[in-house]
């Protein structure tokens, strides 16, 4: 009888295995966040508004509010109500063991020409996130917002909060003033390494404010073109990180590409490896094939999952992108292009699923194994 109960229990656990979800956007309550700003900026905002460029002023989104339409967050001015909704609608519903918030507040911070204001907003957002989200639920982890406009100020912010156990990475927008391999950013990577934090780039704010247009050919028109352009920019960042020698100079650094797609990484690595064979002598510090730096240093999130039209291509492509070590599951909750933890992926082996939905992220972010996992195996 007892063994039957254990088997049933294991079956139950198998149907709802613990998950680490690596891309979550919970709305913040502006008034509660702004309370963390110094008087100077609070008064400016009262008088002039937020003065942050926005993506919504240039491009459409996929749905009203950018969200799944049934995800109407409470609007009572309390962050605690939002967190309660999030717990019920996502953490509990899908058995999310750890949810990585990918930025509290607004990536618009990464678009203003005023680095001091950006730094103040990052400090406020990070402190608000610690107090109102991370400290309220042990499942919730977050990312450190930084003023990427000024890498020295950014490093100060990483040094200020980087040892908080609930903050698991540093995050910036994909929209940038320079490709992220540029030595301009080295103070940020030095700080990441000091605090053992991955450096994450999340698609957003391409061509907005001080950031360069979303393609090298200039601005695009429609939202769907804009989404396609994001991948190009992430590709540019990836090649920049590798060939500028960031991973040679910072051998401990991990780079996380969030929401920019995943399967393209395979042919892009093959192209880099092929060119490197001929051009290695021009960047001789890159002493190993580029794909090797990707395998060791780069992680990428799954959502929005691009599935091949023929399911037979799925497994080979997953192998090609090192999915068992480098791919991280992400739902992008509550956004309209959410990937359901239960329904988005085609069938995979239990081992592969466990790597993508848990172990890869646990290793990257230093998170514990799911409780009781050993017993169910």
């Amino acid at each position, binding site marked *: 009888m007892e063994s039957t109960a254990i088997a049933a229990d294991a079956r139950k656990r198998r149907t709802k295995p613990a998950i680490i979800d690596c891309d979550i956007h919970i709305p913040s309550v502006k008034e509660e966040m702004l309370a963390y700003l110094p008087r100077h900026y609070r008064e400016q905002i009262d008088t002039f508004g937020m003065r942050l460029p926005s993506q919504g002023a240039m491009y459409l989104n996929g749905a009203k509010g950018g969200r799944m*339409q049934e995800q109407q967050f409470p609007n009572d001015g309390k962050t605690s109500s939002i967190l309660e909704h999030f717990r019920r609608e996502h953490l509990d519903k899908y058995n999310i063991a750890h949810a990585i918030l990918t930025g509290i507040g607004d990536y618009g911070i990464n678009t203003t020409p005023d680095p001091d204001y950006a730094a103040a907003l990052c400090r406020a957002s990070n402190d608000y996130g610690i107090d109102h989200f991370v400290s309220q639920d042990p499942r919730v982890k977050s990312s450190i917002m930084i003023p990427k406009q000024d890498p020295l100020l950014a490093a100060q912010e990483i040094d200020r909060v980087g040892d908080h156990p609930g903050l698991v990475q540093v995050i910036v927008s994909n929209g940038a003033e320079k490709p992220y391999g540029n030595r301009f950013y080295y103070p940020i990577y030095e700080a990441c390494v000091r605090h053992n934090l991955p450096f994450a780039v999340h698609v957003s704010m391409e061509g907005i404010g001080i950031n360069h247009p979303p393609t090298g050919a200039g601005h695009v028109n429609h939202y769907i073109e804009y989404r396609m352009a994001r991948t190009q920019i992430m590709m540019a960042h990836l090649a920049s990180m590798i060939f500028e020698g960031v991973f040679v100079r910072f051998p401990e650094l991990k780079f996380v590409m969030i929401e920019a797609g995943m399967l393209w990484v395979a042919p892009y690595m093959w192209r880099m490896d092929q060119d490197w064979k001929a051009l290695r002598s021009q960047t001789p510090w890159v002493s190993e094939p580029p794909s090797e730096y990707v395998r060791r240093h780069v992680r990428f999130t799954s959502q929005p999952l691009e599935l091949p039209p023929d399911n037979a291509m799925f497994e080979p492509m997953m192998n090609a992108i090192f999915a068992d070590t480098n791919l991280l599951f992400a739902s992008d909750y509550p956004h309209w292009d959410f990937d359901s933890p239960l329904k988005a992926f085609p069938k995979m082996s239990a081992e592969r699923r466990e790597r993508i939905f848990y172990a890869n992220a646990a290793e990257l972010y230093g998170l514990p194994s799911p409780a009781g996992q050993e017993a169910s195996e």
Partner: protein
Amino acid sequence: MSAKHYVATVGELQPGGKRIVEAGGKSVGVYNIDGVYYALRNLCPHQGAGLCEGVTSAYVTSSGPGDFAYTCEGEIVRCPWHQWEFDIKTGQMVVDPRMRTLTYDVSVEKYEVSVDQEARIYVHLPA
């Protein structure tokens, strides 16, 4: 064989309206399009969202960039998650008709129990 489930009175489901009801353990969306009733399983075949909770809309066509024309007003439902468009009359996805949700028969019935009783709408699910 099918089982009949009450949806609403005809007065409660006006043209352009919809009702989401529980019928035989399933959630079903019933629409009134120009006086004709259509029922869809309230389940998106893509990732399982409640399809009928999405916006009811028109089919947008175009003769070229910058031109927008609206046809089939009220005949398209957009999934509340990924905004995929489905034809309410057939349950089929607009750009990929092989992707579909179930449709059900709907009947309007009136029993002459009393003069002022309104006709009632029923959805029929396979038993």
